[in-house]
């Protein structure tokens, strides 16, 4: 379903931007409240729930044993998928995965994969015969804006607390999945002509293009995505990149804190 974009909302966003304000009273680079819960679902080998403003997302990790690809006999595999099911918002319709669902899953997937936080060699059980396949599924229950950051956070938190169910598959003892680092995403949407961090539902509805940046522990870029209609300048990007660095560091600390429990 294509959502109706009210003219007055676009005007309001422009007016607020001119006065450096946002609809919900936040500053340009302020986040909404974020809460993270891990190990919250029976049956998932790793799980996390993120409540980010009005957005609620679960991520679950499952494992399977599979045969490695012939050209990489000692490497396991990683897959991250997302479903924007109609539970999450009036605008989502039932049916096969939409391009939006696929984009969300792939952007989160790239950030995790390219950061190298999962060593595929460590997922090997018997070279050429048996490797672990790690599957992360992102389940959006309520879309209140900025589902990308919430999905990325849920995915990495679920992974970092996942237990490999080796006993169930009769290949050794259960053990924590080895994850070296926490790639974290920061998203920006152009609302009223300028970029804001962590767009709300209204800012997404009345806004333009969005940019998603995934940063690793060292501050390196691991995934970038520009979505929706609109263009931006290199200097705008430099500005939001600096903001992303701070935001990702803070969220990384939140993940580390939850792991300790």
């Amino acid at each position, binding site marked *: 379903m294509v959502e109706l974009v009210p003219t007055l909302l676009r005007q309001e966003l422009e007016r607020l931007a001119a006065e450096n304000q946002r609809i919900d009273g936040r500053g340009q680079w302020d986040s909404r409240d974020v809460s993270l819960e891990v190990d919250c679902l029976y*049956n998932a080998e790793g799980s996390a729930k993120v409540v980010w403003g009005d957005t609620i997302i679960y991520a*679950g990790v499952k494992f399977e044993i599979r045969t490695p690809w012939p050209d990489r006999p000692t490497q396991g595999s990683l897959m991250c998928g997302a479903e924007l099911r*109609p*539970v999450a*918002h009036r605008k989502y319709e039932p049916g096969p995965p939409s391009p939006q669902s696929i984009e969300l899953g792939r952007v989160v997937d790239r950030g995790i994969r390219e950061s190298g936080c999962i060593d595929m060699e460590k997922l090997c059980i018997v070279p050429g015969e048996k490797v672990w396949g790690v599957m992360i599924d992102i*389940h959006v229950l309520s879309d209140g804006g900025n589902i990308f950051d919430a999905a990325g956070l849920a995915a990495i938190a679920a992974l970092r607390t996942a237990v490999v169910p080796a006993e169930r598959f009769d290949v050794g003892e259960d053990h924590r999945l080895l994850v070296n680092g926490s790639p974290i995403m920061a998203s920006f949407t152009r609302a009223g002509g300028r970029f804001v961090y962590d767009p709300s539902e209204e800012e997404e509805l009345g806004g333009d293009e969005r940019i998603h940046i995934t940063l690793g522990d060292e501050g390196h870029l691991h995934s970038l995505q520009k979505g929706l209609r609109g263009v931006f300048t290199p200097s705008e990007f430099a500005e939001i990149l600096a903001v992303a660095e701070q935001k990702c560091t803070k969220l990384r600390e939140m993940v580390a804190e939850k792991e300790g429990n």
Partner: protein
Amino acid sequence: MGGYGDVKLLRDDGKRLDGRTVDEMRPVSIEAGVLPAADGSAMVTHGLNVAVAAVYGPMEAHPRKIQRQDRAVIDVRYNMAPFSTGDRIRPGFNRRSREISKVTAEALESVVLVERYPRSKIRVEIEILAAEAGTRCVGLTAAAVALADAGIPMRDMIVGVASGKIEDTVVLDLDKAEDNYGQADLPVGILPNTGEIAFLQMDGDLSIEEFNLAMKYNFKAASEIHVLMVDALKRRYERGDN
């Protein structure tokens, strides 16, 4: 029903493996209004099951062919999250979830005053986040609370409960092992005020006497869960100052 006769499900003291008596249900907790984007919502935790339901509407029924000129249609989707079970489920509709969605919708249409909203549809989305036997009942309970939370007029609530048979003994609310290795499962949807039944399925093997006992257990559990449903709705809205 798996029907593996050699798996022991009752202890020598007559209690079940998790220590419950035959007519004791797993712990249940209910919360209403959990999803900000939905018009109404609920989360039900029943044992290790977690079900979330969202309600959207009434809205214009699309596509046109599902529209009814004299009443609303209830469009239910029961879905299990990929990580909700032991082995990952491939996303998408399957025969099982389609059937459950159909009978759940028909059960809800029996209590919702659908004639108030001609040509409309009311969307009910049931998501199972964790499954430990009995998810269709937990989903039905969640859907009923979500509908009430959305302000949809209903002549009664519906409570989803199940009883079954293990080792030739009728028991209330099968857990996963009991469901896998038991002899019968009888999930029902009960209207707590009128005592009518809007949802009924059964598989396995039950004598008429066993059926009657299982239904007795179901009614007992339904009234217990109904108290929690009402409490969940009240907690969301009760005035703080009077």
